């Protein structure tokens, strides 16, 4: 799992470079002891100046920095998930589907690791996951692109329908009714075909 961008911690902003460097860092030494591998990376951004500090966990502890050194995007995601509004529907759904029927994973497991247990989790936790997916993919909610050729024609058709519906939504929102009409006809044709 690789961290993708900067994020806030209680001790300041961890920039994307630093967040990434614990991951990619092969041998970066602690700025304090100059011996151990630096695994804690802090970036402090004041009004104009930006200072960075790269220290090992031992020195970080001695300096009173208890920030977690290996914050991954998974954890960031988990944080986002935890920070979602306590919508009654979502909570109801979560109670109902506390564990995935296939792998037994719970949302708590996902919060902890940032990873899902099996493909069926996407359906089991759909209500909780989709806002997160949308956020991570800049508003993207349905796949467009490669479809495995071995996949049954039905699934390919279903994917095509998803995308056409998405384009139809966009066209309607953009008040492009001519395009919407074409897309609607295409959807009907595909459904009946």
């Amino acid at each position, binding site marked *: *799992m*690789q961290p*993708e*961008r900067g994020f806030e911690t209680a001790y300041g902003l961890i920039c*994307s*470079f*630093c967040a*990434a*460097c*614990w*991951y*990619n*860092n*092969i*041998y*970066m*030494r602690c700025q304090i002891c100059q*011996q151990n591998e*630096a695994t804690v*990376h802090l970036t402090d951004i004041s009004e104009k100046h930006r200072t*960075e500090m*790269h220290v090992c966990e031992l020195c970080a502890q001695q300096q009173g920095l208890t920030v977690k050194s290996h914050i991954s*995007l998974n954890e960031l*995601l988990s944080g986002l998930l935890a920070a979602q509004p306590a919508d009654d529907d979502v909570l109801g759904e979560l109670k109902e589907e506390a564990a995935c029927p296939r*792998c037994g*994973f719970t949302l708590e*497991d996902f919060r902890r*690791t*940032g*990873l*899902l*247990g*099996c*493909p069926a989790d*996407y359906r089991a936790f759909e209500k909780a*996951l989709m806002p*997160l*997916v949308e956020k*991570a*993919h*800049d*508003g*993207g*909610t*349905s*796949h*467009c*692109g*490669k479809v*495995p*050729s*071995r*996949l049954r024609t039905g*699934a*390919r058709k*279903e*994917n095509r*329908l*998803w995308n056409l519906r*998405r384009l139809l939504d966009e066209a309607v929102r953009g008040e492009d009714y001519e395009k919407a009409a074409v897309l609607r006809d295409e959807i009907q044709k595909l459904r009946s075909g």
Partner: protein
Amino acid sequence: MRVWCVKYRVSLCNASKSAAARWRLNHMKLTEISGNLNEWLSDSGPMSDVVLSSRIRLARNLAGYNFLGGCTDGERSEILKRLKDVLLGLDLGDRMFYISVHRAPKLDRNFLVERHLISRHHAFGKGPRGAVVAQREFFTGMINEEDHLRMQVIRSGCQLRRCAEQIDRIDDMVESKVDYAFDARLGYLTACPTNLGTAIRVSVMLHMPALKMAGQIERFFNACRDMNLAVRGLFGEGSEAAGDFYQISNQVSLGVAEADIVSRFEDQVIPEIVEYETAARHFLLADRVNVLDDKISRALALLKNAQLISSHEALFLLSHLRLGVNMLRHMGAESPAIRRLSSLRGAGGDSEGLSISMINKLFLLTLPAHLQINRGEQLDSAHRDALRAEIIRSTLSS
């Protein structure tokens, strides 16, 4: 002799000759590649003065299995065996090797990370896992990394479209043998929702020392932020001072087709960023030639004389030499320091002075695990620093 898999070696004693031959065919000693530059660092691709390499990575999971977090070790081994056989059977026009990552010593795993053959996560993860690597190192299939399969294709310079074509073909070949976990709405299903959809990660490694020297590196950061790109260090350096190498990659993989992601990178992102760096190089030459000369001269003096040098410092200094040589080659730059660089003769008797591939080779071969593998023994930090300085001195003074 460094042997990857002890279990296999033992079983070889009783194995038939053909099995032994097959084993040798599919297993590699690290020393076979440790002394060479990998193909994607050879400085042969387009725009290679700024774009070191292009990489595309696809994440795939097998249908019918849980994601790795929900798998037992037995299931992980089953997935490993299945995918290993499929990948070793691919016809990519090159010898394919299998590396048993979970059995390899720590040093070897670090070596593979340094060569960008496997990720750090893969090297130091848990459970049965392995990698299938093409001998020329343009392709790696990581098995049981975060997803069941992560395939990557790397090429020198800006060659994302070629990478995309190649990885697509490879993906088709693998897909003809196994069923992927795929959902009509969400696309390729991945253990982490951030990779969902096309499950593609397009990235380029960039060398941008002039922007830093000209005090304009913020332009690059801002451009990346505006284009919603992730920025990372290259050989692990967290700060911008560490060699001025950056890796940028897409963050969105759902709702955009692979071809659109790739063409956006090739037609919009890369030209824009290369333009920034090129403009900064022209600016340095026209207005800050003393800054440029100072950096190059200091780098050369230190590299030619240092008795101890850390990999971090070596990367930082070699980066300045790389800038000088590229400015000479691509812009015909003339300054006292750059002239001194052109008068250096490479270790290989290169009549055109210090070459980029030679500098790239120094970058790679002086990394800690490379030093130790090539030396054939474990070395502590002080010995590594001495050996590194010696290699650089002898290369630059010959």
